[in-house]
């Protein structure tokens, strides 16, 4: 479809560029234009999600199957019934009805998430951390030996153990340690050594945690630069070209 001489696509590109510039105006400080565009984005996102939910979820997965339900096959009505019970939230007297579909959703979701986290993350990661640290540590999976590879294995195991211990509240606290149970001079000395060792391990664990957080922060910064580069690429190429074409039309 065209406006007089200008395709809608070009208008869309022009509008996208102006909205991008409005968002970038936040660099100069909070301003009404930025606020307006922020509200537009939130509104459009919510509106789009509602349209997708209606046309691509509710109609094909709830309404249309419910139409095919019969006395022999009432299963397609179950999602409609559970969804309908959520309306019970509108009144305090019927709000208990909404607990039924919520219980189903949360129960099934939590069970699957927990089982998945155990089978897909915890167990495989524990197995991956259980690596040889003796003479076998040098042996690489594909064959050959490498000192750097062995150091990597040691770093992995020490880092994981120290990080886990850094979350342990009892370790390193006053009075804890290997000699804490003893009494007299020997017990105090033992307690001091155990306390010092536990503190040192916790410090190593915190160091590992901070390093990991630093890596995540740096990666997120890289990601944001990529987004900014994408917008700048759009403005300097597609938007300026379209603007030039439209000005030529004008």
């Amino acid at each position: 479809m065209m406006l007089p001489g200008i395709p809608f696509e070009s208008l869309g590109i022009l509008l996208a560029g102006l909205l991008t510039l409005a968002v970038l105006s936040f660099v100069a400080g909070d301003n009404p234009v930025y606020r307006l565009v922020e509200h537009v984005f939130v509104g459009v996102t919510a509106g789009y999600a509602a349209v997708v939910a209606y046309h691509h979820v509710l109609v094909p997965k709830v309404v249309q199957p419910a139409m095919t339900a019969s006395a022999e096959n009432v299963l397609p009505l179950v999602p409609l019934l559970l969804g309908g019970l959520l309306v019970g939230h509108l009144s305090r007297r019927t709000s208990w009805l909404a607990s039924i579909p919520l219980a189903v959703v949360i129960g099934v979701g939590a069970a699957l998430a927990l089982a998945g986290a155990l089978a897909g993350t915890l167990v495989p990661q524990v197995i991956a951390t259980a690596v040889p640290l003796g003479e076998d540590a040098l042996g690489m999976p594909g064959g050959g030996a490498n000192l750097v590879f062995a150091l990597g294995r040691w770093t992995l195991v020490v880092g994981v153990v120290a990080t886990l211990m850094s979350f342990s509240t009892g370790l390193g606290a006053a009075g804890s340690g290997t000699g804490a149970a003893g009494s007299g001079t020997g017990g105090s000395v033992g307690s001091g050594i155990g306390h010092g060792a536990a503190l040192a391990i916790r410090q190593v664990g915190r160091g590992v945690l901070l390093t990991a957080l630093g890596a995540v922060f740096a990666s997120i910064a890289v990601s944001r630069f990529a987004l900014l580069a994408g917008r700048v690429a759009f403005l300097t190429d597609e938007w300026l070209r379209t603007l030039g074409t439209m000005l030529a039309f004008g």
Partner: protein
Amino acid sequence: MLIAVTLPFVVPFSLPPASASASSRAFYEAVERVPASSPVLVSIDWEAGQLGEMEPLTRGVVRRLLARDLRVLAMSLAPQGPALAQRLLDEEGARLGRRYGDHYLNLGFIPGNEPALVSFATAIRTAAPQDYRFSQSSGSYAALAGVERAADVALIVVIAADDAAPTRWVQQIGTRLPVPLVVAVSAGAGPLIAPYARGDRPQIKGTLIGLAGANEYASLTGDSATTLWTRLLAQSTGQAILVAAIVLGNVVWLGGHLWRRLRPREGAADENRWETA
């Protein structure tokens, strides 16, 4: 910072070409191993806000899958994902002469996270009864011929802006099915999915991380990636400025700290005189 990122788009720079990392090469090899005409499931789990970083990644992967004559079955766990996927698939499909419904299909938005993924894995046509573009029965398309469950596809490709979607795929599908899983994510999610892609038996067979990953993949597939290269330069310039700012800030702080400790305290002589008195 804005000026630094804009600079490579205005002033032409050049950098030596980067060699592909082991994880990008593993991703490439996993795709190349799939026999021609096999169905490949592509989950496009990102939204419009991440377009700048995720679009080049997705475009490179989709282009290669279509160029290899694989049947691309797109889906998304994000509401905006199907629309973004459709645009890319149509553009690349038109470029390579591939037809919607025969060579590629958009199964749309699959809501519900974990339960939805399990349902999708066991019965694709029930979880996605209609396609996104024409709202027709998904089973009526040739692209879905012979595919009833996720186990019937030759490869699963997850393209996501954060680690949540790849983690769900690993936990819910990777533990149930023997189908190889490869992941393309933003740079921000890279360290968070790395544990799944490392070790003797990685759960993720290959990864592409951010613009750098997209650039490496383009060089592996022999794609011309001039625009991508400029974006990567802009990203690198921004990174360099950030590093310089952090280093400079720390030097200034350290210098100030040392200056305060080393300089003689004002009024210290007067205090001593009063104490003696």
